């Protein structure tokens, strides 16, 4: 039974088609990766699923209900949370206040929201930074903050845009472990990732995009050996 369903999504910007008839399903509890070269339409797809862009054709459904045309805040309240590729912490607020904003989408009680936020910061390993201003965090910490903030909205599906992008090598294993733990906890995830070692290790399934179109959809093993994926994205060296 698919929880999130992307059906025939097409999005054009002027003469450029960012997504062309993209369809795939994400089952409940599944972790699906999205790969593809720059400009292949991965981020556009995220913007559409999360309600920031309206597709020219096609539909996004969550548990059978359509999300298409809903505002981003509605989409979030219905259970789809996201992180941003270019991180967007509320720089002037403290770390715990950042996460509280997410928690307050589910509770009206400020004190309860603060307790939830502290729990989540503990879970993503940012507990000791809770009272610092978000602007003082490193990139890796900001990624964790965005993760905690999105989780605070109690999503049914979490969209992660580049978990390891721009993060120093030493921080990557910790972040990957975090994603793994979330998945193991039953969360459904859709993850954009450039780091092939990371994505093939965590994803159950991978969708490959190229020039806005889906060119492959299958197990990490099958997709990384797919002729078109190798030609378009991975390069010959990868298979050897």
């Amino acid at each position, binding site marked *: 039974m698919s929880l999130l369903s992307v059906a025939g999504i097409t999005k054009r910007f002027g003469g450029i088609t960012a997504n062309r008839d993209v369809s795939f399903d994400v089952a409940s509890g599944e972790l699906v990766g999205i790969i593809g070269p720059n400009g292949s339409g991965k981020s556009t797809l995220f913007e559409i699923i999360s309600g920031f862009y309206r597709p020219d054709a096609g539909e996004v459904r969550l548990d059978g209900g359509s999300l298409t045309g809903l505002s981003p*805040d509605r989409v979030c309240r219905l259970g789809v949370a996201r992180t941003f590729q270019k991180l967007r912490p509320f720089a002037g607020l403290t770390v715990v206040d950042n996460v509280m904003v997410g928690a307050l989408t589910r509770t009206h009680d400020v004190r309860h929201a603060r307790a939830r936020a502290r729990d989540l910061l503990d879970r993503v390993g940012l507990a000791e930074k809770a009272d610092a201003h978000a602007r003082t965090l490193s990139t890796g910490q900001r990624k964790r903050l965005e993760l905690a903030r999105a989780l605070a909205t109690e999503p049914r599906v979490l969209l992660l845009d580049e978990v390891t992008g721009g993060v120093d090598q030493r921080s990557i294993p910790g972040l990957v472990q975090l994603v793994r733990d979330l998945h193991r906890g039953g969360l459904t995830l859709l993850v954009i990732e450039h780091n092939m070692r990371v994505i093939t290790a965590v994803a159950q399934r991978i969708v490959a995009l190229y020039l806005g179109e889906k060119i492959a959809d299958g197990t990490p093993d099958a997709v990384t050996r797919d002729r078109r994926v190798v030609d378009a994205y991975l390069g010959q060296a990868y298979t050897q």
Partner: protein
Amino acid sequence: MRGTWPAVAFFAAAALGPIVVRDAFLLDGLILILLWGASAAAWNVAGGYAGQLSLGHAAFFGLGAYSAALLGTRWGVSPWIGLLVGAGLATAFGFILGFLSNRLRGPYFGLATIAFSQVLLIVASRWRGFTSGSEGIPVPFRPGLWTLGIADKRVWVYLVLLLAALLYLVQLYLERSRRGYQLAAVREDEDAALSLGVPARRLKVAAIAVSAALTAVCGTLWAQYVGFVDPFYVFSVDLSVRFCLAAILGGIGTPLGPFLGAALITILETSLRARFGGIGAGLVGIYLIIYGVVLIVTMRFAPQGLLPWFGEHLRRRPHLGTAP
């Protein structure tokens, strides 16, 4: 600042004013400080907490001033009713401005707000048959609390103190409530706020409408106190700037800041004018230059405003933004 003790001290001092001081000039100053402080606080709801830098809040102030003055002089309606009508009108106009804020961002929104107050100025100064045009409206003095014909300045102090306290509490709510946190998120990054389920647009519009209504209430009380409504004053850009200046000087997005800023501006202006201004003074207008210099120096050394500056230098603790 975390604690509310500076606010308690401020309002307690204001409440003691009429008991300690009998001088009409000083009481007048206190009333104006509280009125301008309340107006700046009302501006702060939109400008500070929602991050919508309006330069046209005089429009709402003028609506409040005119509503009560016109209803009172033309139909003999109590200014309290006029206050409600003014607040209602301002709310409606606030919704329009709020709608604009979702279309225009940053400087464009600021420009639109100026245009907005200028349109009302033109209407008020040209519609002679109804508003008496550029001559303005003298508010008749009819003794009684219901008609706000109060000669005793001490009563006025407590009246505007009530208003100021209300404005302070509204801001405190915006700092500590769920809606306050959400509004802070919208101010910081609207898209990120949306992605977390915050109904950003509705919140912004609501904040601007509330801010407009409260500004109109200040306008009504100001006009009833001063006793005259001049369109070129109540709808002026000068007045709009005064509101945001007081809030920025005192500490934008802090509940006590606008009152502190208003106190500084009012005291500075009044004392400088008394000293250097007036007919026969050697250097006419020098007080304006000194006034300007003091403002510049203040902003140079306390760019976040006085309240955060005090917080940092007196208590050695950094300003915590919107954290309660």
